[in-house]
């Protein structure tokens, strides 16, 4: 159980800066997921917390103690690596117990704790095997066992599920969450998979190009993406965007010459501004062509998902994805009406990419609005 405070942390290799001043606070016992596309600096940040990467500028403290100059072993963190990083010449028991052996824990005690850990991660029957004789999921469990046996204050996960097949990934995700519930150590989990991020996180941090884009609960981030990037990165299929200008005299934007209503307060505040309008596929509606308040669109093609379908329609050369449940079938090539409900429309500044209805007092280093 430990708090982690990150103060204006930067990382640069030579002249290239890859983290541009990150400020974050992780509460004790929290499960934090850092999400971002590859190359956004999320793994670097995690490795800086672990002590595997030097901190170019700024300060990281764990439990109130600045750890910038501490060796990894003195930081009280343990880490699960993407490729598991198991010691290939040691069997499962030796892998799990290595940290205790290094720490000089007596043999009997060590064996007791190895057995206990193996039970937690479900590896009792595999203690004599070498890593090469294990399946991917079992190796993953060894890596977790090795991390938990030290009873660390902080767990760090570096994309630990990305080498597993889809089914196993779902299963391990549940196990990680269960493990966290049981051990309740502060956990930081890095991933580029938004489903992992949404399902695991108490709090989600979205990063892009070395900046923190948004911090919040998964639902906050889904419903109120703070930037255009976050809006487009979270959600599958991705948010639809089109660019337009807020009408100078009214609360609407034009799409293919047709008015699309937007929030009245927003419209008057941003009259005349160039904006990017985002709306999630699951919030769009398709109706019969010609209905009032709808934009005529041509159905391009339909993706069947079984439980629902995604209909791609085209308006003025622009593709819109509409997610819908089973129900009415739309033929490719037919003309339909697209409705964009005003309450689900997100407005982003075309220039800065920032959300326009953000309360202005919230700065880039925002706090969550909902108590976790």
């Amino acid at each position, binding site marked *: 159980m430990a708090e982690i405070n990150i103060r204006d942390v930067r990382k640069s290799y030579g002249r290239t800066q890859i983290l541009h001043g990150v400020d974050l606070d992780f509460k004790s016992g929290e499960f934090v997921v850092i999400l971002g596309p590859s190359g956004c600096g999320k793994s670097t940040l995690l490795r800086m917390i*672990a*002590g*595997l990467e030097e901190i170019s500028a700024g300060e990281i403290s764990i439990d109130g103690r600045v750890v910038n100059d501490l*060796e*990894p*072993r003195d930081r009280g*963190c*343990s*880490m699960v*690596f*993407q*490729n598991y*990083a*198991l*010691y*290939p*010449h040691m069997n499962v028991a030796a892998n799990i117990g*290595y*940290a205790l052996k*290094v*720490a000089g824990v007596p043999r009997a005690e060590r064996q007791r704790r190895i057995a206990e850990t193996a039970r937690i991660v479900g590896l009792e029957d595999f203690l004599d095997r070498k890593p*090469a004789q294990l399946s991917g999921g079992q190796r993953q469990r060894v890596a977790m066992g*090795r991390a938990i046996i*030290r009873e660390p204050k902080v767990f760090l996960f570096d994309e630990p599920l990305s080498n597993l097949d889809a089914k196993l990934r779902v299963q391990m995700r549940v196990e990680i969450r269960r493990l966290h519930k049981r051990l309740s150590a502060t956990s930081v989990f890095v991933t580029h998979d938004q489903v992992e991020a949404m399902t695991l996180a108490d709090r989600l941090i979205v990063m892009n190009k070395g900046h923190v884009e948004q911090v919040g609960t998964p639902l906050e981030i889904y419903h109120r993406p703070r930037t255009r990037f976050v809006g487009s990165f979270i959600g599958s299929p991705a948010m639809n965007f089109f660019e337009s200008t807020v009408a100078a005299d009214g609360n609407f934007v034009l799409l293919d010459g047709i008015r699309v209503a937007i929030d009245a307060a927003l419209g008057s505040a941003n009259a005349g501004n160039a904006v990017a309008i985002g709306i999630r596929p699951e919030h769009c509606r398709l109706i019969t062509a010609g209905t009032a308040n709808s934009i005529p669109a041509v159905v391009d093609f339909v993706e069947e998902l079984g439980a629902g379908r995604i209909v791609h329609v085209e308006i003025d050369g622009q593709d819109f994805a509409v997610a819908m449940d089973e129900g009415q079938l739309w033929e490719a090539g037919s003309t339909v009406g697209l409705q964009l409900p005003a309450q689900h429309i997100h407005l982003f500044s075309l220039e800065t990419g920032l959300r326009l209805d953000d309360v202005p007092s919230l700065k880039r280093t925002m706090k969550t609005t909902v108590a976790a």
Partner: protein
Amino acid sequence: MSGPSYFLVYDRNAGPVDLMNKRAVFKSWWLPMAFALPQLLLIFFFFYWPATSVLTWAFSLEPAFGGVGERLFVGWDNFRDVFADTEYWRSVSLSLFFAFSATALSMFIAFVLAICVDRQLKGSGLFRFFYIWPYAIAAPAVGLAFRFIFAPESGLIAVVNTWSPDLWNPAKFGSHAMILVIVCFAWKWIGYNFIFMTAGLQSIPRSLIEASAMDGSGPVRRAFDLQIPLLAPTLFFLLVLNLTESFVGPDTYGIVDLTTEGGPNKSTDVMVYRIVSEAFRGLNYSGAAAQSLVLIALIMLFTFIQFRYVERRVHYK
């Protein structure tokens, strides 16, 4: 004609030609012979001829000044003479001592250097470059350089003799001379060992090292728990090579010849040096030939033991 099509080239006269499976047939016999001859001659003059000579000399009494007289077949007499000579047994034990010490020293230092470079401490790229150099220098050149460095009266090391006379004098003390040749050999072979160890260490995934760092082990502990076991195949290969090379290799001869010439008082008279000097200075071809055969047998035994008993303990991934 089957085979991978990417080896196909187009010949103006013959059409597509498969280079991999092409069977060229020479129309005459002398052209292929002319191509093969230089290599065949080299092998004949520098391998088969000497090898058969050694075999015949070892079992006969070879006249010292050329094969004019009658060659007398003497059976195992040459070997009996060699084995009866206490000097010979001293040379064997000197060789063994030299081989094990030089190998241990060279591999140990190379390992420490490779580990340091692998940690990517500051400037390690530059050091990696320089550490490899010594191997590129011919052994006699190394010997000559070390002869000057370690000359007791005028070398760089001469200063120690001003602290206390004869603190270092390889011309006088056998032990000093032995240290000198061991250091020379080790110095030269550190570069070679270093290359292989560095390559081996680089093939250990970085995340393993990081995981062990997270698990709390420092650099020394890590070397013993992780790097040595994972490097074992490389280390075994280098062990065989170093032992063989130091036991019979031309480097050993070159270094001994240019630094101590087997002295003082034959205290660095290792087997290779003894064979050459007995054959070409003592003109005892038969004795030297017998010793050569014994040396070959010893090396075979050595290598056999290593593969039989050491390799088993090597953990191949």
